[in-house]
């Protein structure tokens, strides 16, 4: 009995390790690549043994890539900053607009309400490339091409539907009686929204905000078409590593590591809000 369960545990552990290795190996490989020069990365056969170097990171951070063909300017840190600004402002705006809208959709039945909500969701159905051409034409006419406002506006296509639909579900899960009770206590609707609805939907808002941030962060085509060099995020900026003198694998790997970092930190920080129970057992269902 004891032996068989021990064997089971060992087997389970091995299988889990296998699965983890399978899924995390590419990331591990990228981590290893980021500490190697192009020569050690491209040698055949590949080897796990190499002399680690920080040259990729220093090149990225200092913005100067020294190669055999000469010195190359890298805008990576600027791209990273652009990514942070674009994603943060977009998600903040989407939260500001989306959370009250989600509350309205969850609590009130109004004419065309479902249609509006569905239309917003349908923005996520269409492939971005489909809307990109008309969008860029309109943007040119409106003078929004290559502006922060224009980019953040387009990013709402990504962030707003996501936040609206996730947060709406969380608001719907809160018993309306809890809000009614607060109103009957003598509080106005705004206080009820900020003191009852918002705190209770916090896990959902955190999850939606995080997801929206990741989606914005990973966006490529919108910024590629609608932004010029000084406003491009890391996803587009990474193209610069494909140079005339070859592909800079080491720098790409280091850039990937640096660009994962903000979302990873945010996810770790938001985790405690994500796991927080929603209704906390106050309403007997």
């Amino acid at each position, binding site marked *: 009995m004891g032996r068989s369960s021990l064997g089971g545990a060992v087997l389970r552990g091995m299988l889990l390790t296998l699965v983890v290795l399978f899924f995390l190996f590419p990331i591990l490989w990228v981590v290893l690549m980021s500490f190697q020069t192009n020569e050690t990365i491209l040698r055949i056969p590949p080897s796990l043994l190499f002399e680690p170097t920080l040259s990729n990171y220093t090149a990225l951070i200092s913005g100067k890539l020294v190669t055999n063909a000469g010195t190359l300017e890298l805008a990576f840190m600027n791209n990273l900053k652009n990514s942070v600004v674009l994603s943060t402002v977009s998600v903040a705006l989407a939260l500001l607009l989306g959370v009250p809208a989600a509350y309205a959709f969850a609590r009130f039945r109004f004419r065309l309400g479902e249609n509006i909500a569905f239309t917003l969701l349908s923005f996520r159905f269409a492939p971005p490339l489909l809307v990109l051409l008309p969008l860029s034409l309109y943007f040119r006419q409106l003078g929004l091409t290559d502006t922060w406002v224009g980019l953040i506006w387009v990013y709402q296509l990504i962030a707003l539907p996501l936040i609206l639909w996730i947060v709406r579900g969380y608001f719907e899960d809160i*018993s309306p009686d809890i809000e009614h*009770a*607060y109103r*009957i*206590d003598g509080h*106005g609707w705004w206080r009820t929204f900020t003191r009852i609805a918002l705190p209770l939907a916090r896990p959902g808002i955190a999850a939606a905000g995080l997801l929206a941030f990741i989606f914005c962060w990973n966006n490529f085509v919108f910024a590629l078409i609608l932004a010029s060099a000084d406003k491009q995020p890391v996803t587009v900026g990474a193209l610069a590593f494909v140079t005339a003198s070859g592909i800079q694998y080491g720098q790409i790997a280091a850039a990937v590591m640096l660009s994962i970092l903000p979302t990873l930190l945010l996810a770790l920080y938001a985790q405690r809000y994500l796991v927080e129970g929603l209704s906390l*057992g*106050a*309403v007997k*269902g």
Partner: protein
Amino acid sequence: MTGAARLVLDGVAKRYGRAVVLDDVSLEVESGEIVVVCGPSGGGKTVLLRLIAGTEQPDQGDIRIDGKSMLGLGAEQRDVGMAFQNFALYPHLTAYQNIASPLEARGLATAEIKQRVDKVAALLRIGHVLGHTPRELSNGQKQRTSLARALVRGPGTLLLDDPLRNVDAKLRYEMRLELPRLLASFGSAVIYVTQDYREAMALGRRIAVLRQGRFEQVGAPETVYGEPANLEIARLFGDPTINLYPCRPDGEAVELLGERVPLAPGMAQLAGREVMLGIRAEDIEVATEPMPGSVAAELDAVTPLNVRAVLYLRSRDGKELLATVPEDDALRFGRGHRPVWAKLAPDRFLAFDPATGARL
């Protein structure tokens, strides 16, 4: 009209789409009075409370508190306290903060809030759990916390939506005894909603039976029980359910349960028409020996049921008849399966129109 808080419902109606939930409902509640609104689920009880509380607005009619129309006023502008069936506590706040909420809304000083919360918590015996969040409270404590929140402000009108529904049987029994005294000490006009007729009988000075959006009967508990307005109310009130037999009286007697049973003089006018005859289980005297004017029956089973025991009888013509006797008396019937004689009390018979259900 008294000067103190008093609630008036005047021809209130509420529809959701085509469904009429409340239809021309009128009621007056004095301050210090408990009116129990009782009825089957889906009868519109909760909607009625929502209309009074102000979380919904009526389509027709007027709701007045202290003589002032409440139409168009939001829930926060009415002097109403409400305890919910599902407690509706704020899960992210402590019991203390939950109870303090109505006082904070009125901008009372912290010291006074504390004093009043402590007072009502002591009254409801939850002083020791004020620091806990709802998750850490037992169902009984949640129920008391929600009651405390409704009471703390001493509202002129108090709405209790089946507050004992989700607590265990023992606590429900205790609270049934405790609530009338507690509520009396606050002097509010109380509307208490329940599905449980025993709770209604125990708590209400008056009972309003709400069925299909209408008050079918409003009266003292003993009136609703003894003289139900119709068949459904007679069925609803009473445990075990009232015995009902379709029959056709012929003046002074009626063919019932395979025998001729004499009728009370008052029922002479029912001669010749179809009636549904109702006999309360406790109005039947059961003996192991024949009694004059009794009906022979077979005893099928004896079920002890708290203080009284229910006897399941089968009459000669195969009809089932439920009777209750004090539990000590039940011992002489053993486990059942024996011939017995049941003496009906003709003066306590209730006659209903089989078609409309109205009492005759």
